[in-house]
């Protein structure tokens, strides 16, 4: 049993990891066939992973409601949102004459599910992030200080780019557009390239550690 619980997962990771890294260098149709099949599987398993992602939310809010913790009413709203959307997703569209089955439109006719999406989810998510515009403004006034030479450099570059990316800036100070282009294409590209190389080395090191069973955090979860 210990083998099944502990060694087997590590063995699977090692074998699949080495196999699919090696696949990259093998153009033979058999190796390509294996890639086709297994990526198809991964796609489907990825769908199951999504289910895992949302279940903890169900649990957390269920606990809140059961214990009547402060603000449990909002948890009810959340549940209502989930159930309402699911109901809309599986309702019957009389206008289109068929079951909705998770389609936003059927033959060009908007379904109840599409309505919930366009008139609730889109404005809600959009507005949530639009709030940030206001907070950037207040932060610009209250906290974006040139605390050090480095921060000062950052702010100067920021101001130039902010000018160079809008028509008014380019009109008032035509050179700002060119300077912005140069900053983005040369200075910014250099830094991002170095960061990209660094991150890539880190990602490869992590993947190698996973394959060789040195890094096992991903196995977490279930008790032994």
């Amino acid at each position, binding site marked *: 049993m210990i083998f099944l619980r502990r060694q087997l997962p590590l063995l699977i990771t090692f074998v699949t990891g080495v196999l699919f890294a090696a696949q990259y260098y093998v153009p033979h149709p058999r190796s*390509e066939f294996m*890639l*086709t099949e297994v*990526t*198809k599987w*991964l*796609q*489907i398993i*990825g*769908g199951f*992973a*999504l289910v895992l992602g949302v279940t903890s939310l169900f649990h957390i809010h269920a606990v809140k409601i059961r214990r009547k913790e402060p603000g449990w009413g909002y948890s009810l709203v959340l549940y209502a949102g989930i159930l309402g959307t699911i109901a809309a997703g599986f309702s019957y569209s009389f206008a289109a004459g068929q079951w909705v089955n998770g*389609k*936003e*439109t059927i033959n*060009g006719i908007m379904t109840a599910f*599409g309505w919930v*999406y*366009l008139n609730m*989810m*889109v*404005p*809600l*998510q*959009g507005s*949530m*992030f639009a709030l940030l*515009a*206001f907070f*950037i*403004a*207040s932060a*610009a*006034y*209250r*906290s*974006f*200080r*040139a605390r050090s030479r480095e921060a000062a450099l950052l*702010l100067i570059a*920021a*101001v130039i780019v*902010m*000018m160079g*990316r*809008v*028509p*008014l*800036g*380019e*009109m008032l100070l035509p050179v700002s*557009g060119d300077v912005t*282009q140069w900053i*983005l*294409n040369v200075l*910014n*590209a250099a830094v*991002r*390239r170095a960061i*990209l190389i660094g991150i890539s080395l880190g990602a490869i090191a992590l993947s190698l550690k996973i394959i060789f069973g040195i890094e096992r955090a991903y196995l977490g979860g279930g008790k032994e």
Partner: protein
Amino acid sequence: MSFAERMLHIDRRLIFLLIGVCTLLPLLYPVGLAIKVSPEVHGVYDYIEALPEGSIFLLSMDYDPASKPELYPQAVALLRHAFRKNLRVIGMTLWLPGTGLAEQVMTKVAGEMGKVSGKDYVFLGWSPGSGSLIINMGQDLYKAFPTDYYSQPTRELAVLKGIQTLRDVNYVVSLAAGTSGIETWYLYGKDKYKFELGGGCTGVIAPGLYPLLRSGQINGLIGGMRGAAEYEVLIGQKERAVAGMDAQSATHFAIILLVILCNVFYLLIRTSPKQGEAR
């Protein structure tokens, strides 16, 4: 409390108000400032312009409603351009929450250009897996998407005639709001299947894509609402993004002003002798 400190401690809701006004006024009373087109946006435009009729153009709309104001206009402009050039268009998304928006923009633009689903274009919808989905499409498109969004078997669609894998696609553009976007399409797609790749993205991730632009891994980049406005100018159909540019100008200048004020007051506090500790 010194003057500078008092000024720094004004109610932040006044600043919120300022930004609201700076956005709203230009929207209500547009000025129509001229927009210059950058070489990054030209990269994408020129490539589509040079594609012969009937070429395959895949547009992957990898964003969710949070980035709609930036990427939706890009999608509209790109689709208009592609349909006008009579390209065969494949639409899809790697982001589940963006499925509805992607479907909406496809049907809307196709409708206004008189294009027919299945014949001139296909919307594949969303499918899980990101990287593995792209690899699977590169190996066998029909395995990755056995049916399109409307549950029509993809093998029978006229628009996909002669296409087996991503290798047969002439141009892919990913409109990305984050990871599972342009980098993913390069890493798991172009690296092996060698199609040409272009990008459109939100302002937040745009600077991070310049290394790929320089090395030619993507042949163009449409950055944020400004990029969308440039594309609208290029195809000669000025719409929401161009309309937003005046407001963008106003808010940027408001922010610049606020940053300058903040630092002036900060300097005043720092240089005033008794307020050494003030922050």
